[in-house]
Structures are given as C-alpha cells and as structure tokens.
C-alpha cells in the first residue's frame, strides 16, 4: 500500500502536476466571482506562498450533515 502510494505520487509529481495545481487552485479561487458570502476560503498551509484554495463557487455538492 505504502509502495503503490509512493509510485502513484511519483507518477503524478513527475508530470509537474504540482506546479499546475497551485495555479489551478488559484484559478478556481479567482473565478469565484459570484456571491461572496458563499465563497468560504480554505487555507492550505502546504501550498505556501500565499496560495489559497477557495471553495469552488459552483459547489453542487456538499456532504450531507447527519
């Protein structure tokens, strides 16, 4: 399990996905031009450099609270 996770991570990171991720996360946040009240901003400490992963504005889904 540990080994497959490692291989999987290497595969994804080897594509340079890390770089686009920060950008895409930023995009998703910036595109959130609609109702501000709905746009909770989630801090993503690992991303560093002030990147923030904003809750996507067209959130169709959320975990139902039980």
């Amino acid at each position: 399990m540990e080994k497959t996770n490692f291989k999987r991570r290497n595969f994804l990171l080897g594509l340079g996905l890390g770089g686009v991720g920060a950008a895409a996360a930023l995009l998703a946040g910036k595109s959130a031009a609609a109702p501000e009240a709905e746009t909770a901003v989630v801090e993503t400490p690992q991303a560093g450099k002030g990147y923030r992963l904003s809750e996507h504005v067209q959130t169709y889904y959320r975990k139902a609270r039980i």
Partner: protein
Amino acid sequence: MNVVTENLPLTEEDLARAGLYALLARLLHAAPDAALLDVIAQADELAAGSELAKTWLALQAASAVMDAEAAAQEYEQVFIGLGQGEVVPYLSWHLTGFLMEEPLAKLREDLAALGLARDAGVGEPEDHMAAICEVMRVLVAGDGDSAPASVEQQRAFFDRHLRPWYPKFAAQMAAAPSANYYRAVATLLRAYMDVEEQAFDIAD
C-alpha cells in the same frame, strides 16, 4: 479502511488534482469571464514534455487571445444551441443515447452512499460533466470540515462515472463545429483524465 482520523493538509499533487477538477467544472458549467481568462493566461506553465503540459499551454494561449463575450457566445452555441447544443455533456446520453436513463440512477445511488447532496437550487441533473468533475473535486479535497475520500473511493467513482465516457465526451467537444476555445478545454480534459486513469491503475 475508510477511517480517516483527521483532516491532513492536502499533498501537492492532490491540491493540483482538486484544482484541475475545479477548473474543468467551472469551464464546463459556464463560459469563462474576463478575470478567469486572464488568470489562466498568466498562470505558471507545467514542466515541459507531457501531453498534459502541451494541452495546458494550448489553453493558456487560447485564453490569452479570447475575450469573455466571444467565449460566452461560443459556450452558448456549443452547449445550448437552438433546442440542442453541439455537445451533450451528460453521462446518460453518452452511454445510452438518452437523457436521464439508468446511468443517472446509478450515479445518484453512489452520491447518496457517499453522503453527497446537491445544493438546493441546482436544477441540473447530476450526470452533467461539470457536476461529476465537481464531485471528484470534493472527493479529492474534502469539503469544509469533511475529510477527503480514500484513493480507493476516488478510483471507484472515477471508474464508474468517468472512465466509460470521458474520451467520447472530449472527442465530441473537440469536434463541435463552433468549438474554438472549447477545443482547447476538450484536449486538456482528455489529457488530464488520461493521467488520472493511469495514476489510479498504479494504485491497483
């Protein structure tokens, strides 16, 4: 083993995956506005070499020369049209030839099992590609105080609801007569989901 003890910060690659799913969901849900076009155009490039990097670069180039009004017009022609758009973005249609058939019912069952519910006020069927990308984002990144799903759960959802039709959908979008900007979106979607497919297969 679906027990997650706490919400760990997302890894670099999961942040990337969540961002790409969010971006695809956003672009398939509605045309990009000027601000989004601008940010895509100015975003970082990917390490060169991969198909994904090529398609990302192409979308950036397309975003640099596209204006919001033209994008809105194109979205209208490609996805909405007069009566029917050139692209049908629904899972059920691609698998059965009809809207709202069994694939939608199966998707709804899986969403219920995952504890995912639509926001009130969203009238669109759940099997719209934008909505399915949005589910993947929630599974990868979690949502608010709910934890991300396990890779096994993500893979199961991808296998059932994306793997069977994303190549057909991407091909239809790339070939749509009015598609210009959305041709670049189609190739990015195809390249990214190919990457996802391969990565899930590594986790076998």
